[in-house]
């Protein structure tokens, strides 16, 4: 019987083409806005959290307080040193420490020059592998560095493909860093993290020689915890040990210990606020779409009074009339939802493609969320039904004799 009511409702929608299209347009725009905005918001989140992917959940970063802007750790007044490294290594639960340097260098190639970040790779195989694995470092061409690759470098994808040098830098090319020649042995694959795309990797020894960095100077320390559950405890322990060593009070530290969760948490809070605002705007357009459906259903009931009376005269119960009209308004929601969701996805795909082309990076990741799609369609269906409830109820309660008068 429901199936028959569906075809009655469907026929009625088909008959009133223009009005049905306009009604659909209202809910279509609302759903398209919701889907594209949420989808873009998700993309933003994916892209931003992708930047943090270079740190896995079981890693901490220790660095000294900064004095200004620059690569992390490089502007600290008092540098971290081997003594600090030793202290941290001895903290219970720490299974690996990697001293890191991150500096700017001048890169000359093909008679052009520009500045770029350079960072050191530890020479021990275990630590080197950990960096490769945790920063998702893979080569697009060439190979990764090993502990014996003195005078050789890996280039981030954006450096290699930069237009600054007039031609692309390829594996086997020689580049000049601060006046010293290095051989490129690998180009990194494009990463979701811009840090990885814009960095030159070389062995620790090479970097210290090149930039004249004292042997025990450290910009920041990557600490690997025994397990990700212990990250917070270990973070507290490292702070306590360093405070004691430096004779500092709680809250007056000249160093920071950052866990990936802390950083992500702060960013997620911001993203959530953005998402709420965006969804709020989209919800307004959905509400208007719903009002459009209610309006259409009201006119439809008025216009079809005689039809309602006839159906009652030939045996339709109030509940039957209610169903026919609710199905019709539900169909508005459903069809508007399906087309709107499809269009919303298309829109977010176009926007993310344009944004990514323009910025040359993965600023907005495009991904299809089935939960979002199905949720939006169901929600739209529900809005259609809700918007149609009161008009349909009124239709069902019409007295047959009054309805027949039209």
């Amino acid at each position, binding site marked *: 019987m429901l199936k028959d009511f569906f075809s*009655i409702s469907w026929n009625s929608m088909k*008959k009133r083409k223009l009005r049905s299209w306009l009604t659909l347009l209202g809910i279509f725009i609302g759903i398209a806005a919701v889907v594209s905005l949420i989808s873009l918001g998700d993309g933003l989140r994916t892209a931003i959290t992708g930047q943090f992917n270079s740190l896995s959940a079981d890693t901490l970063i220790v660095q000294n307080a900064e004095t200004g802007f620059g690569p992390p750790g490089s502007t600290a007044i008092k540098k971290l040193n081997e003594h600090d490294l030793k202290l941290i290594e001895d903290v219970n639960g720490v299974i690996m420490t990697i001293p890191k340097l991150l500096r700017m260098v001048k890169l000359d190639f093909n008679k052009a020059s520009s500045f770029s970040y350079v960072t050191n790779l530890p020479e021990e195989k275990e630590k080197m592998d950990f960096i490769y694995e945790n920063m998702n470092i893979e080569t697009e061409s060439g190979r990764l560095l090993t502990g014996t690759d003195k005078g050789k470098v890996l280039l981030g994808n954006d450096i290699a493909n930069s237009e600054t040098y007039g031609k692309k830098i390829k594996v086997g090319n020689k580049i000049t860093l601060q006046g010293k020649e290095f051989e490129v042995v690998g180009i990194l694959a494009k990463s979701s993290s811009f840090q990885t795309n814009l960095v030159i990797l070389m062995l620790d020894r090479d970097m210290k020689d090149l930039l004249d960095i004292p042997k025990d100077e450290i910009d920041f320390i990557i600490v690997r915890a025994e397990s990700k559950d212990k990250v917070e405890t270990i973070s507290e322990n490292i702070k306590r040990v360093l405070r004691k060593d430096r004779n500092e009070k709680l809250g007056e530290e000249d160093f920071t210990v950052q866990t990936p969760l802390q950083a992500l948490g702060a960013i997620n809070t911001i993203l959530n606020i953005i998402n709420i605002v965006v969804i709020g705007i989209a919800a307004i357009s959905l509400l208007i779409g719903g009002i459009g459906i209610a309006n259409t259903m009201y006119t439809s009931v008025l216009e079809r009074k*005689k039809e309602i009376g006839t*159906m009652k*005269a*030939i*045996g339709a119960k*109030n509940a039957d009339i209610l169903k026919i009209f609710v199905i019709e308004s539900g169909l508005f929601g459903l069809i508007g939802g399906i087309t709107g969701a499809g269009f919303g996805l298309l829109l977010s795909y176009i926007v993310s493609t344009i944004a990514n082309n323009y910025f040359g990076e993965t600023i907005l990741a495009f991904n299809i969320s089935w939960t979002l799609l199905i949720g939006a369609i169901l929600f739209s269906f529900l809005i259609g039904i809700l918007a149609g409830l009161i008009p349909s109820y009124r239709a069902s309660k019409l007295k047959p004799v009054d309805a027949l008068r039209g």
Partner: protein
Amino acid sequence: MPKLKIQKNHVDEIIRLENLCKRYRMGESVVQAVCEVNLGINKGEFVAIVGPSGSGKSTMMNMVGALDLASQGDIFLDGIDIEHLAESRLAQIRGRRIGFIFQTFNLIPTLNAVENVALPMIFQGIPRWKRIERAKKLLNEVKLSHRMYHLPNELSGGERQRVAIARALANDPEVILADEPTGNLDSKTGEEIMNMFMELNKQGKTIIMITHDPNLAKKARRVIKLKDGKIIK
């Protein structure tokens, strides 16, 4: 709900009106559309109801067809007092026991002939294949087998009224109520429709028809004249 009154004494009576009144409020004044009507109609009768406009014909017909409630009095359909039934029971009675035919045909414009005829059967929960089969058979009987898939606006007035007759017969009701069925038709077509009613009456259907065409009224076996809401003959 008040206890149902069951009438047993008039065995052959399918419809009985007792002290039936219908009053409307029109602003300050109250209009008496039907007043103190007592009437019995037997199974298989063909009754024409005549009278000038405003005499209460349609009002009475609407109450008999359970489309409207009386202000006073009772209507018995096959012994059951329909004035005290719930709306869903009334819908059931309208659907199963009464077939309505209107002056303006009242077909659903978005449904084709077969679908229109099958519509009353949907509300009775009859399976689709059965409905379609019966709708086609009925359309065949009213000689519209060549127009089955046409929409109402593609049919002539006479054809539309024949679709409406087929629809009225869909659930095989005992009583056919026709409110000026030929009012919107030319006299030749009107006569064809009238002949169809007479044929149905021969098959045993009780027919109550409102008309103001004296020639058509003559063909009915019994004529009831209404004036100012009262039966005058």
